[in-house]
């Protein structure tokens, strides 16, 4: 039976390969090359190599945290500025559909992740919900890298994408944590009764409050609002120095993004040793789930009216997994979940996959669905 299936698959391989003509293959390879051989992913790679060979690069924690603040402020401010222009030109007609799609995907992706992990992967409720919280949320750095990629290819994304990043940050974490807390409540009550102790108070509310009022949301949403207000009320000339400082095409943004990616590479390099611990299922999940979510993002983004660059970046943010906001929230709410699984999947599998291969793949997917 298995041999038959294998023979059939082998027979069909040339047909599948024939579907990609030489031009398409060379286009995909060109996209990969355009993305991979640029300073941002190469800095990430340098970080990984440095950790693996016990090299001497040390990024001080304070510098990393300062850069994170700058990147979040920059994404928010420029996003608010562009959103104001969009609003002045078209009102809310262009943005309500993408915003609704973002909210929908923010609610669906944690559920699909949970179902796959729990019922296909056989992981515990807490581990499934914990990992689903990471994959339901998004990674602002993946956004920044995807945005740099589409700008380099000359297909800048729609101006309101940072607004969508902000919308996508919270619901995924909230939904996955609520699922996890609700389903594991009975298990906890049984365990506490067996041990003759009172049931521990859930920290769900506290964790959700921390996500919503956490640094990522406060800085991105806050600066989005500041950028929006100041664009509307301030003369263009007065706004110029701020735009110059924060702009994503600027040398400051691109430069510090390289330092940030170097740091992420150093951390991902450490986490690579954990790949053996998490097992093949989670490795496959960390690659295939982003592709599925990414395609859903690209396709629905296209239907909602995003352009080629917009669909690519949207696919990247929907597929990406949070590794800054989600881990502490999951740790507080679902303490029995093993953080090695979720952080390794998000940071050592999905993040590098997206940076190296995912973004160009979403770019090709966007072209394939007809985005222009």
């Amino acid at each position: 039976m298995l041999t038959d299936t294998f023979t059939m698959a082998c027979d069909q391989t040339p047909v599948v390969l024939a579907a990609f003509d030489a031009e398409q293959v060379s286009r995909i390879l060109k996209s990969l090359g355009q993305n991979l051989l640029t300073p941002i992913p190469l800095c990430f790679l340098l970080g990984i190599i440095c950790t693996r060979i016990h090299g001497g690069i040390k990024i001080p924690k304070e510098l990393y945290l300062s850069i994170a603040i700058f990147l979040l402020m920059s994404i928010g401010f420029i996003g608010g500025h562009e959103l104001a222009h969009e609003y002045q030109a078209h009102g809310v007609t262009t943005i309500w559909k993408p915003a609704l799609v973002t909210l929908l995907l923010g609610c669906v992706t944690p559920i699909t992740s949970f179902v796959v992990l729990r019922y296909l992967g056989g992981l515990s409720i807490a581990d499934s919900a914990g990992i689903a919280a990471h994959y339901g949320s998004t990674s602002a750095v993946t956004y920044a890298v995807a945005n740099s990629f589409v700008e380099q290819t000359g297909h800048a994304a729609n101006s309101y994408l940072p607004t969508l990043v902000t919308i996508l940050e919270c619901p995924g974490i909230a939904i996955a944590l609520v699922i996890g807390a609700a389903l594991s409540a009975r298990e906890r009550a049984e365990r506490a009764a067996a041990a003759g102790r009172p049931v521990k108070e859930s920290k769900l509310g506290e964790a959700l409050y921390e996500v919503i009022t956490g640094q990522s949301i406060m800085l991105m949403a806050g600066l989005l609002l500041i950028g929006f207000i100041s664009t509307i009320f301030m003369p263009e000339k007065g706004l110029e120095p701020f735009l110059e400082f924060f702009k994503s095409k600027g040398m400051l943004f691109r430069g510090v993004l390289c330092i940030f990616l170097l740091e992420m590479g150093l951390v991902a390099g450490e986490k690579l040793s954990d790949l053996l611990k998490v097992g093949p299922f989670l490795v496959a999940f960390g690659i295939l789930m982003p592709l599925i979510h990414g395609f859903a993002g690209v396709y629905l983004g296209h239907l909602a009216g995003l352009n080629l660059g917009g669909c690519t970046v949207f696919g990247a943010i929907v597929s990406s997994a949070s590794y800054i906001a989600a881990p502490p929230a999951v740790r507080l709410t679902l303490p029995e979940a093993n953080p090695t699984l979720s952080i390794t999947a998000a940071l050592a599998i999905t993040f590098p996959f997206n940076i190296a291969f995912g973004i160009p793949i979403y770019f090709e997917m966007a072209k394939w669905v007809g985005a222009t």
Partner: protein
Amino acid sequence: MQLYPLKLVTVVGESVIMEDIAKEAVKLGASGYSLIDVTGQGSRSARNVLVVSSGSKTVKAEFVVPIDIAEKILEHISHDYFEHYACIAWLSDVQVLRGERYIAK
């Protein structure tokens, strides 16, 4: 110079829980606390969720308290945190100046 015999409760654990522990200790009767970033390694170090390559991912909390409060704090930590979090706590004897400040009135 008068020294008061009191207890020093020291808790070292993953950063995500330490502020909660400190606040809960105050509710249990501690008059204050110190939180200090520390570096090191323990049997469950991998459980840290702060994604950074260098610097501290672990925090040490210290409370100077009378014995009855110290016992309450240790009991609370062992019940609520030991099972799932990377965390250790110990008790030492200390001689404290102006110790009357640490004794609940």
